[in-house]
């Protein structure tokens, strides 16, 4: 009963957070996305047996699937390690109530298991079991097959939360996880050790023998007991509640920025902000992912003649950091906005600091994409034009649009897939920035030539750089008009 009560209270916590309703548009978009993914998975589930029939004629589809089980487990662990948030029930208010500690811990451990996202892959597994496993074996084998998959999900959820609590989610443990995963793949590739074979044997036993599922349950039990052991070692929340743990401060030496006066100070402040919050750090990693877009597009023959598309890719890459941070450049300061507005910082200086920071972001991204020059002179021209256009034009769009994001951003909270403080506007804003240049380049290169298109955009960008002072004045005026809305929005919180 108490357990259900706890679940109910967690639910009301989510429902009653003010962001829930305000963010309806985002929720709808995410729901549509989820439905789309569900459809894709279902489709995969219904066609998986046919795909697997074609792969190998010695093994039947279920045997192949069983061989992949341990890979799914490891891959799942990696993804969970990166994405899954630890379930941190806010313990203190409950600790003082007469609730048994073991109940609270069970709640912490078992609540993630009821999250439907865990069972998303069942959309693939169940149709596959019905269509293929029943045919090759029997209904009871199919049921065991599905159950073994459910147990695997439990095992993964429990193991990853144990590993995360025990070893933390820092960069080092991330690298260790990746290294372990990579070395297993390498061993398989060179036929030193086949995890596939081991997995096939193990899951063959679990699924085909009537008592095989007991083994899978034992694994789940071990993972559960590991967690219990961890909590028995760390009794107080301060030991395991990541949120309560104070970060160790990385005091990087940014004193070289001093030369640039107040603007330098403000840029230094912003850099510290980025490196001292989880959310901004994960965005930093995410923007690195943009950098590999080129590998996908530049190597494909299909895109070679699609100049507009190529330019968009070049623009996204040479502006990756700006595209990720740009429109939040003011919202990042939401928790100390009043401070910046009342201190001795002229508004123009504040806007200028943001401007130079974005320019620096563009330059850094550009330098990081220089390896693509290896793909030929065309890419060099594309990137140079994109650089100028980003630094001369897009930068101002982001500075202007940033004043329309008036929601307070909570930086201390989490990491991947965090949409707190974002509205449908944030999604809409990026669309024209991305697609208008693409259409312009596409049209100009179709009717005149690619060279002409690139020169046009480069010159427009250059003009933006030359007249940056007057354009900054425009941004200052817009900011001044929006200032009270921003201050009010940031004060409201979620």
């Amino acid at each position, binding site marked *: 009963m108490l357990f259900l009560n706890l679940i109910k209270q967690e639910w009301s916590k989510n429902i009653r957070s003010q962001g829930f309703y305000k963010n309806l548009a985002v929720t709808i978009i995410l729901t549509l996305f989820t439905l789309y993914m569900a459809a894709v998975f279902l489709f995969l589930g219904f066609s998986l047996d046919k795909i697997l029939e074609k792969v190998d004629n010695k093994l039947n589809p279920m045997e192949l699937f069983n061989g992949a089980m341990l890979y799914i487990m490891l891959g799942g662990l990696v993804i969970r390690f990166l994405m899954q948030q630890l379930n941190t029930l806010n313990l203190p208010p409950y600790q003082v109530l007469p609730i048994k500690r073991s109940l609270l811990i069970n709640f912490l451990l078992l609540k993630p298991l009821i999250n439907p996202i865990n069972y998303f892959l069942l959309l693939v597994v169940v149709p596959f079991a019905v269509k293929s496993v029943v045919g090759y074996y029997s209904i009871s084998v199919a049921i065991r097959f599905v159950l073994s998959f459910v147990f695997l999900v439990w095992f993964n959820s429990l193991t990853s939360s144990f590993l995360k609590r025990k070893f933390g989610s820092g960069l080092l443990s991330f690298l260790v996880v990746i290294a372990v995963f990579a070395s297993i793949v390498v061993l398989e590739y060179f036929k030193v050790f086949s995890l596939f074979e081991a997995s096939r044997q193990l899951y063959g036993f679990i699924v085909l023998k009537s008592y095989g599922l007991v083994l899978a349950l034992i694994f789940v039990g071990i993972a559960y007991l590991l967690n219990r052991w961890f909590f028995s070692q760390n009794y107080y929340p301060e030991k395991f509640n990541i949120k309560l743990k*104070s*970060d*160790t*401060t990385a*005091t990087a030496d940014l004193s070289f920025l*001093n030369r640039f006066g*107040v603007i330098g*100070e403000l840029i230094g*402040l912003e850099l*510290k*902000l980025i490196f*001292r*919050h989880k959310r901004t750090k994960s965005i930093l990693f995410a923007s690195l992912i943009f950098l590999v877009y080129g590998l996908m597009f530049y190597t494909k023959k299909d895109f070679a003649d699609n100049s507009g598309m190529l330019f968009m890719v070049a623009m996204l890459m040479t502006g990756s950091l700006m595209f990720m941070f740009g429109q939040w450049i003011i919202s990042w300061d939401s*928790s*100390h*906005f*009043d*401070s910046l*507005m*009342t*201190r*001795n*910082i*002229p*508004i*123009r200086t504040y806007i200028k600091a943001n401007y130079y920071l974005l320019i620096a972001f563009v330059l850094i991204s550009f330098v990081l994409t220089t390896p693509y020059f290896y793909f030929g002179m065309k890419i060099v021209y594309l990137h140079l034009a994109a650089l100028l256009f980003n630094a001369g034009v897009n930068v101002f769009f982001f500075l202007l649009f940033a004043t329309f994001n008036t929601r307070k951003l909570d*930086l*201390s909270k989490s990491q991947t897939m965090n949409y707190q403080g974002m509205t449908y506007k944030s999604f809409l804003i990026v669309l024209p920035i991305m697609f208008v240049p693409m259409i312009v380049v596409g049209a100009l290169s179709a009717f005149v030539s690619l060279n002409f298109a690139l020169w046009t955009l480069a010159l427009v960008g250059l003009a933006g750089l030359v007249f940056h002072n007057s354009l900054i004045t425009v941004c200052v005026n817009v900011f*001044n008009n929006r*200032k*009270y809305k921003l*201050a*009010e929005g*940031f*004060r409201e919180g979620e």
Partner: protein
Amino acid sequence: MIQVTDLQKAYNGVTVLNIPFLTIPQGESFGLVGNNGAGKTTLFRLILDLIEPTKGEVQIEGQKVMRNDAWKTITGSFLDESFLIDFLTTEEYFNFVGKLNHKSQGDIALFLDSMKDFFNDEILGSKKLIRDFSKGNQKKIGIAAALLGDPKILILDEPFTALDPSSQIRLKRFLSDLQTRFNMTMLISSHDLNHVTEVCERIVVLEKGNIVKDLKTDEDTLKELEAYFAV
């Protein structure tokens, strides 16, 4: 020094502050009291140009504060935690604020030394981030940062709450000292009638956005205020 004319602030048609006229001369210590929702913080935010007045204006040294940067050079303020930058260490924060006011490293060190008693050895010298300090210590950090730029005008919202008794007494002495030595103009709001009458020469009582009393502090003021607030 500060002049408020015909100032009104309304939210959704409900007027929360209405001050036809108010001047605060240089060097005055101005106390603001009133129950929750009386408009104290709203008035301070209007003076600091953090919200837009529905009507009227605030001037500091003859200049409108709205969308103006000039007043920022002579004003120090601390209203709430959003005036702190909580992901910095205290040293980084004081350095940042000091640099904004064109102070040298030596000036900042000297200033922090003068704050030693007030800080009670708890603020400086640790690598702790401001967000990890207690409310009381955060308040001390905020008040100190407000003073760091040698402001002519100091604006503090509820400076005494969350401070321990010794710190409250130290702060009182400190504020009186600042006023006599530098002739600083001070605007202080407080729920603590004792403290505010001790520190301020003038007390203004706000009720539902209107000024209902404007008193020069003497030995009867505290009694008068207590009588007013006793319902």
